[in-house]
């Protein structure tokens, strides 16, 4: 059934599922998962080149025409994140970046102060900034006001699989968002990806839920279907909730 494309920074995507590449047990499983997810954009991290060998991930993405989105995973300060973003731009010849500035290893939650600082610097430097943020509607607004191309609030902390901890916050973010809202982190299963879209998100970004599932390609398929299901449900206009029942068959004579 017809649907508008997802548009970020003027660029159209047919898929509303962004699959991260982290955590896959093998390159073969990752490839099957990426294809099952039918994702058009996928995150990669920037790390030291151990040998002269380039890791196979870029070739894999190139082979299937999937756009790599460099992230700044692991950065703890605006300065670290800005340099990592610049290196990603240099390595991948893209001005797009998934901006992450986390506060600690235990929660991997974004540091709101450093995140906003880095976002402002990168926007000034010409980047298309997609920030991983918490679910605070105020921080999301400030990131959008700073010129970010989208806001990517978490459902719950990275890798927890706790789903969307606070749907009310996501609804508040969506209700006033001037840029696309991408639900990022915390999704554990397909119904949660569907819920994210029903709440009004424009897309979902996830990695662990797929790459660490027992059957990554099948979970990728589940997520692809779940995102589409939630998107259509949002557009279709759900029935109101009511306390008492309402018959779906006519009364008997």
């Amino acid at each position, binding site marked *: 059934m017809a649907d508008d494309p997802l548009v970020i920074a003027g660029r159209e995507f047919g898929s509303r599922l962004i699959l991260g590449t982290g955590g896959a047990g093998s390159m073969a499983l990752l490839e099957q998962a990426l294809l099952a997810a039918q994702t058009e954009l996928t995150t990669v*991290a920037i790390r030291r*080149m151990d040998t*002269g060998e380039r890791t196979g991930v870029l070739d894999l993405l190139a082979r299937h025409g999937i756009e790599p989105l460099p992230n700044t995973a692991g950065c703890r300060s605006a300065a670290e994140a800005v340099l990592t973003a610049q290196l990603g731009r240099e390595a991948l010849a893209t001005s797009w970046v*998934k901006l992450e500035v986390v506060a600690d290893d235990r929660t991997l939650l974004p540091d709101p102060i450093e995140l906003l600082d880095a976002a402002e610097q990168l926007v000034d430097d010409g980047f298309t900034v997609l920030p991983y943020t918490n679910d605070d509607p105020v921080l999301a607004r400030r990131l959008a006001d700073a010129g970010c191309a989208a806001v990517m609030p978490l459902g719950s902390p990275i890798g927890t699989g706790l789903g969307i901890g606070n749907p009310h916050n996501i609804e508040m973010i969506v209700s006033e968002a001037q840029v696309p809202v991408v639900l990022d982190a915390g999704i554990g299963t397909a119904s949660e990806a569907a819920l994210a879209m029903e709440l009004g998100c424009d897309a979902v970004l996830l990695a662990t839920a797929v790459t660490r599932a027992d059957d990554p390609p099948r979970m990728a398929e589940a997520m692809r279907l779940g995102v589409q299901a939630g998107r259509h449900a949002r557009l279709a206009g759900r029935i109101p909730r009511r306390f008492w029942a309402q018959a779906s068959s006519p009364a008997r004579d």
Partner: protein
Amino acid sequence: MNVLVNGEQWVLPAGSTVADVLERLAVPSTGVAVAMDGAVVPRASWLRTPLRPGALIEVLTAVQGG
């Protein structure tokens, strides 16, 4: 001249450039970025960017993540 490349001590002839490091590493022509002393060295400048003695060189690429 000593430099630190991805955390390892290297000894290079005076006048070596960033390009020399990459050549030694036999890095591919794409998907790579270099930082010297915490600043990006654009690909276009690799050939003409001399290494500072004691410089910290980081050679990076994309890996699975996020």
